[in-house]
């Protein structure tokens, strides 16, 4: 495998206030690396939605961002409840979020579709009762 830069984060599932910190850090790091602003924005928004999902739906998890020469890979891995029907979950507007989460500004059912829209490739590997692993890729060009 070619050389790459890795950023690794533990995402705390008990704290909605701090949710998104990893994504903000990634954005800062990618800026320092001098990458294209549009690519940075796509990577950080997609990761932010995924990070929020890990907090509100899965009790936290781990996030890795790997920067390769030609693409950036974002891997979000949790041991939450899993997604029973991925196709349904991907639909805009579908959400199992509580009213409480909605009152916090999330739970509009747009997260997964935003993630898909901002990335060039997205794979969801989810098993009910085991967890969810989402791998996204944004090409440099």
């Amino acid at each position: 495998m070619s050389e790459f830069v890795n950023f690794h984060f533990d995402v705390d599932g008990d704290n909605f206030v701090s949710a998104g910190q990893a994504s903000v850090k990634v954005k800062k790091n990618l800026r320092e690396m001098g990458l294209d602003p549009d690519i940075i924005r796509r990577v950080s928004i997609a990761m932010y939605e995924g990070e929020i999902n890990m907090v509100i739906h899965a009790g936290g998890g781990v996030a890795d961002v790997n920067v390769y020469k030609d693409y950036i890979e974002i891997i979000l891995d949790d041991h939450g409840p899993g997604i029973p029907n991925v196709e349904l979950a991907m639909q805009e507007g579908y959400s199992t979020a509580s009213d409480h989460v909605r009152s916090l500004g999330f739970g509009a059912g747009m997260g997964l579709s935003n993630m898909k829209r901002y990335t060039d490739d997205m794979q969801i590997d989810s098993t009910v009762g085991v967890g969810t692993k989402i791998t996204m890729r944004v090409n440099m060009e």
Partner: protein
Amino acid sequence: MKISDIKELLDAQVLCGEVYMYRDVFSACGSDMMSDVLAYVKDQAVLLSGLVNSQVVRTAEMMDMVCIVFVRSKQPTDEMIQLAKDYKMVMLSTEKRMYEACGILYSNGLVANGQKKA
């Protein structure tokens, strides 16, 4: 328009970012649902919201926005103000409600779908 014009038009209080008040802004977005804000990048520079939590500030940062306006006199926490300072943003608070605040800014030339000018 400049952020200072937004302050005047909305009769708003400046909560932080005084030094960035003369930045030019061309477009804005108003919402309490953060995923809606995150859905389409159109180079909006200003976020109007009635929601008060750290995610509003992070969402604005994700979108490269430079100003947040809280409507209905909502007051952010110290933690949120600190985040906004870190991100070099202006935070304003106005008594006006969302519909009115957006209407005033829109009719004064702050559009929804701005193009960043040189």
